[in-house]
């Protein structure tokens, strides 16, 4: 309607609408990038720059680095991650940034780099950083993130960790050039624990797997119990017998095994399960010896995003995502969306495309990100962790949002989740901030 008329060049006031036409082209180009890269032909950043030679336009290139990891298959067919997990969030945020950018002559490009080889991935990212792309959103393991961070040391570059909950990245191994949109395990455990304590379900039976990540989440739960007045009445280790994840029939033995495993424990309110690899936790709901709810990595779960959240204007956000990706939004998509939107917000507010300026704004307390959680989000000054509410829900619906009412804090109630300033063991970050 009236779109042709709006692009008449004779009228000064028609600029806004002309921009939209121009940007439709850009968005399409951006969406092609991941496909090209998947075929092993990394796009040279210089080519991206040359693609749209429009005068007076600021171009902001955001790199998304994905480490392709082998993961054992989850127990449920419903839990296989989609191939574009996270990337779809980056695409939506890039579209959102560009819609805003058209009013400010700013164009955002997304450059997705993915590899199973960490050295190769880091080399590709470095190449782009050398060419001027200073903002790297990463979905990588903790170990790989540390290598990436060290490779980019001394450059005007920021790694935004969207995929790893590992607390050591925020603590002893924190890096001055890294912030985190993914909530840490401590934040997740605290979010869950606050709700259980609010419910007065304070006595917990902890069942953990044998993996290192399982132990890390179990540790986060122990810490949360101490902070908020929960009591772990007993801990049990569940050993997964390796083999086929499905046998024809299967349920008969599990139905015997889980009740036996949860017998003879001190009285408890909730069974907490620490199974990050999704190898056994789903066996526990409805099978425990005593009729008890299950929470933790399965059952009632803490998370950064729920695909059915509709509060705080999230409905439109969920709709937008579904139209783009043809599936519900997952926590990783959200973490990446927040990362890419942080860059967009910094560009809008600073009116700059220079990585150094954008990075400074992202880390500053001025950042005031609206991200469909009913609160302004910003990055903590002591470890770079995004301050955010934690959703607690079942597979179908959010049950609650933490921080819970009554958990107070002298600065921000959001800082009752995770590691607070006085407890922080992050040294490198403080030094980095002093620069």
């Amino acid at each position, binding site marked *: 309607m009236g779109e042709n008329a709006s692009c008449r060049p004779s009228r000064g006031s*028609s600029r806004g609408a002309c921009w939209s036409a121009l940007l439709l082209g850009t968005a399409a180009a951006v969406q092609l990038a991941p496909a090209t890269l998947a075929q092993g032909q990394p796009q040279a950043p210089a080519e991206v720059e040359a693609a749209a030679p429009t005068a007076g336009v600021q171009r902001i290139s955001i790199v998304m680095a994905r480490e392709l990891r082998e993961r054992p298959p989850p127990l449920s067919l419903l839990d296989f991650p989609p191939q574009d997990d996270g990337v779809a969030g980056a695409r939506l945020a890039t579209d959102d940034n560009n819609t805003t950018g058209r009013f400010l002559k700013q164009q955002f490009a997304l450059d997705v780099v993915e590899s199973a080889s960490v050295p190769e991935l880091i080399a590709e990212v470095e190449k782009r950083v050398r060419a001027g792309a200073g903002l790297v959103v990463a979905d990588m393991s903790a170990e790989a993130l540390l290598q990436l961070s060290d490779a980019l040391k001394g450059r005007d570059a920021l790694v935004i960790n969207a995929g790893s909950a590992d607390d050591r990245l925020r603590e002893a191994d924190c890096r001055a050039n890294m912030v985190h949109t993914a909530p840490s395990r401590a934040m997740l455990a605290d979010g869950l624990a606050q709700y259980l304590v609010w419910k007065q379900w304070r006595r917990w039976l902890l069942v953990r797997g044998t993996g290192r990540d399982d132990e890390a989440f179990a540790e986060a739960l122990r810490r949360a119990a101490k902070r908020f007045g929960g009591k772990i009445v007993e801990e049990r280790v569940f050993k997964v017998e390796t083999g086929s994840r499905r046998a024809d029939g299967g349920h008969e033995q599990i139905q015997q095994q889980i009740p036996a495993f949860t017998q003879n424990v001190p009285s408890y309110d909730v069974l907490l399960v620490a199974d990050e690899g999704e190898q056994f936790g789903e066996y526990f709901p409805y099978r425990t010896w005593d009729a008890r709810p299950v929470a933790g990595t399965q059952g009632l779960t803490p998370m950064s995003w729920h695909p059915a959240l509709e509060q705080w204007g999230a409905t439109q956000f969920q*709709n937008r995502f579904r139209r783009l990706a043809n599936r519900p939004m997952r926590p990783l998509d959200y973490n990446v969306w927040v990362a890419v939107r942080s860059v967009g*917000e910094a560009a809008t*507010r600073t009116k700059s495309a220079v990585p150094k300026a954008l990075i400074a704004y992202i880390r500053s307390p001025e950042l005031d990100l609206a991200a469909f959680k*009913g609160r302004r989000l910003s990055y903590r000054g002591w470890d770079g962790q995004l301050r955010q509410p934690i959703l607690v829900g079942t597979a179908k619906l959010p049950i609650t949002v933490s921080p819970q009412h009554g958990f107070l804090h002298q600065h921000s109630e*959001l800082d009752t989740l995770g590691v607070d300033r006085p407890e922080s063991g992050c040294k490198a970050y403080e030094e980095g901030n002093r620069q």
Partner: protein
Amino acid sequence: MGSGRWAVVDQRRGKGAGRAIAYCLLPIAFLLAAPAAAYTVYVTNEKDNTVSVLDSEKLEVVRTVKVGQRPRGVILSKDHKWLLVCASDDNNVQVFDARNMEYVRTLPSGPDPELFVLHPSGNPLYIANEDDNLVTVVDIETGKAVAEIPVGVEPEGMGVSPDGKLLVNTSETTNMAHFIDTATNQIIDNVLVDSRPRVAEFKADGSQVWVSAEIGGTVTVIDPNTRKILGKVEFQIPGVSQDAIQPVGVRISKDGKRAFVALGPANRVAVVDTATFRVERYLLVGQRVWQLAFTPDEKLLFTTNGTSNDVSVIDVERLRVVRSIKVGRYPWGVVVAPF
């Protein structure tokens, strides 16, 4: 007011002729019985798919009317004949006879309409389509969409200047107030405001437009002619965390001296001196207060309190909350008719 006035509790859309005849008599009965300065207040209940109709003198709900799905924005036509309701999940605007709440017709709105504003001449209607980054312009006489204006991400707040020349739309994720020339339906300027702008409200003399930012926690006052920011209203309430102060609805008195700002989960309405942009007072109302409406004589201000399912009534002269009235679930929009 005659007790037979609101005899029918639920009125579904598209009823037969029999009921319409019965209603023809009602305005007459109303005129005879009505004391001066009793107004009709309409509140949309987002969760219930209803409109609560209140009497501003009795201060009670006199009727609850079934409307379309997820009703949010609500306004009256210029002649006050029609009540227009954004039925967000039905993707349309429903028109009711404001006197008897008979369903009249449906207007196209574009997807997910949330808030809208009428041109001061009475036509057209400007609708924010939150899902589509568009403002849709609808001729309410012909019922046709006449233009679509691309704006920022999640358009929401809509304000039109008293002379009708300028339309202001806010986009929640782009964080801008878009200034649109109503003659050409083109954006002429964009003003960056704080996070998640929700409502744009013009002063009656057209000299200022006030834009609330829900997550930013501020109200930005803009000169619509120069698009320069004149000032920012900031809020601080002892004992209430800054995070909970989330300005949404804004109403400015006709004399331009006082602005009332609904502060969402802070459960308060701020009374702002428009000369200094300072808050004079905070009035404690129901929970998650979002939208506001004056009675035509500006003696009362009604607030919709989303999570406590009620409206608070503020005595504007004394700056006191005089009553809270239970309505449906998640009350969202409110408008008052001069009858």
